[in-house]
């Protein structure tokens, strides 16, 4: 998938026979059968059954529900709240995608260097990832206190209503998410960096390449698989963003930080429209799948081209 500079060796005939026999008697996917069964029972079956509700007007409780065809999906297109939250979600996703991976890459390059404290730094940068997103949101509510003498305002000498001002709140949420997950991107980039052969750097140095040139022509191309994974994970994470928003602002002030996930949650549990909520969830799932597929297709083709 990455560098295929060596010619492919033809395996000896004996080895081919052995593999052939083994494949006939013990197909490797058999091992996955128990896991697949559990997955099918716990994930696939409920998901597929759940799709049915997207075509009903079920309130979420009681027996009363009737089939409404595509009415829920037509309603989504005319729903200001859903469309507004789609805009918020896309903006959040792009900001998180760029900033989280940018910071993650810088952190990875930093702790990859031969610093004495690098092991400690790796732990520190990764630590927020393991904290529950809801905890992070509560913690950041203190950091984002509107009091000019405390929190981030006090530290930076500002007077900003981080979570209460509709024009700032979405960015505040993005900052919180980036803070939490930059360490995650870092770890994936770090794995990519560990895989860059020293010989290539040495060869480049002999050819007279400087630090920046070595990064541009040696490290960066070899980080392509790590970048693919990171971009995909942060895209999916951004599109599905819920916990942090729900705990920090509950979609407010007004509708300023409403995301697709908080809207579909409210439709189901606050407004009592379970059927409609399932329809939004289905659209969101298809949307995430489509974006991820396009992204993977594009990024993978780029990897092969390297």
């Amino acid at each position, binding site marked *: 998938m990455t560098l295929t500079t060596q010619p492919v060796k033809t395996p000896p005939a004996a080895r081919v026979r052995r593999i052939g026999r083994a494949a006939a008697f013990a197909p490797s996917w058999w091992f996955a059968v128990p896991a697949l069964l559990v997955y099918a029972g716990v994930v696939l079956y409920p998901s597929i059954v759940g799709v049915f509700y997207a075509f009903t007007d079920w*309130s*979420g*409780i*009681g*027996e*009363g529900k009737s089939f409404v065809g595509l009415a829920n999906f037509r309603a989504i297109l005319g729903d200001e709240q859903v469309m507004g939250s789609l805009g918020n979600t896309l903006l959040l996703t792009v900001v998180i995608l760029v900033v989280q991976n940018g910071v993650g890459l810088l952190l990875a390059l930093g702790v990859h260097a031969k610093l004495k404290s690098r092991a400690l730094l790796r732990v520190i940068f990764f630590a927020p990832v393991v904290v529950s997103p809801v905890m992070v949101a509560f913690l950041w*509510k203190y950091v*984002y*206190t*509107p009091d000019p003498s405390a929190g981030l305002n006090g530290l930076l000498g500002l007077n900003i*209503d*981080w*979570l*209460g*001002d*509709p024009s700032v709140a979405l960015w505040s949420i993005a900052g919180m998410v980036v803070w939490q997950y930059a360490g995650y991107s870092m770890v994936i980039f770090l794995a990519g960096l560990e895989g860059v052969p020293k010989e290539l750097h040495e060869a480049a140095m002999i050819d007279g390449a400087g630090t920046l040139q070595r990064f541009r022509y040696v490290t960066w191309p070899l980080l392509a698989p790590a970048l693919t994974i990171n971009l995909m994970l942060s895209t999916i994470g951004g599109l599905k963003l819920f916990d942090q928003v729900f705990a920090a*602002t*509950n*979609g*407010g*002030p*007004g*509708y*300023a930080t409403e995301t697709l996930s908080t809207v579909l*949650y*409210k439709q*189901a*549990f*606050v*407004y*009592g429209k*379970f059927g409609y909520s399932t329809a939004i969830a289905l659209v969101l799932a298809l949307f995430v799948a489509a974006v991820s597929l396009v992204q993977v297709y594009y990024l993978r083709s780029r990897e092969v081209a390297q």
Partner: protein
Amino acid sequence: MTDLRDARISRAQFFRMMGGLAVAAAATACSTNPQTGGTTAAGASGDAAVSLKFVGVADQKAPMDVLLAAYKKAKASVSISVSYAPTDQVQTSLRTQLGAGNAPDLHVVYPGSGSAMSMAEIAKAGLLADLSAQAWTQSIPTGFKPAFQQDGKTFMYSAGSSVIGAIYNKKVFQEAGIDTPPTTWTEFLGVCEKLKKAGKVPIALGAQTPWVTQLINYALVPSTVYAKDPTFDDKQAAGQTSFAQSGWRDSMEMYLELQKRGYFNDKPNGTTFEQQTSMVATGKAAMAIQVSAVLPAFRDAATSPDDLSMFPLPGSDDASTVWIPAGVVVGLGASAKGKNAEEAKAFIDFLGKQENINLWAKAIAAIPLTQDASSTIDPAVESFLPFTKDKAVPFMDQRWPNAEVQPTHFAVVQELLAGKSTVDEALKKMDEAYAK
């Protein structure tokens, strides 16, 4: 198999020998469940007690603690396991349980029709037991019936009503030279001005907590809407009037006037209910427009709880046309389909006894649903009593037709406070949500 059955019998005999009458009585109680009695080991050992499950909202913990202890004494064979969660979380978890068909035997129910866990919504789905046969339901005041009843049947228990008004710090008022609470809107603005000049925040507002956003409108609308037309709800339901065409507009403008004059704390949208509470309790702010049910929380946060009292927020310039909001406090219902429905209803019947209504109401500073000589009323809400007879209306959401109007109200108020919306736009959004 035989061994097992023998073992069980001998154990039952052993208990009967040791426990005597108590166990025998419990065994009789359990015989209401003939299909389980004696068929399994669990059934035999369960003879000792019926266990009910109650899921409540955090506000119900204080009164339930008192009443569960009393019920334990009255009926030792029934144990009730309880869990509580804040409003928004309890709605999610309960709706999930109700939707999946495993409702707790007893659970929180919101009065009227305006939320996803409201009496009307859940009763319509056939999930609430009919309580109409219980004696206490006969004395529900007429004005409160829509909060308790659907199609003439009672589906919810509640201990009384709470009011919305200004919770204020008497000491701060005295320091600013204010002797008596205001009785008209103009006087109220004058009081705020005095407080502001005295260097205090006149009104603490924690609008980041969604439900807090609604309270100022709820306090004003009885005067600006219902005092002029007590049948507003019926007309709105019939499509003859709307939020935009009514005194709701005045109330929104009065709300914003308070902000424009600088009577709120800085950045209300970034301030939470907890911060609001502490501002008034510590004397940094003079007032908070709040529901009387949170008085205990304000008192807990104060160094001297006696400094805190309440007065009605006057929403009119003529003291004789000031009305107040008095809403039925959040209640509880019994699951219609649980196998312990009878025991659950018996517990509610117990709560309906006058002394228990009194206990519940006392714990949350509410006005008891029905009163006798031993009923007490929190001194802080005494100033509301002259209004409760014919100048009080239920909280607005209790008559709203769906669960979407209230959250829309929260959002438009936050937008108004942030200057991101106009009163026209806000009322239009509420009318749209009402029509859904």
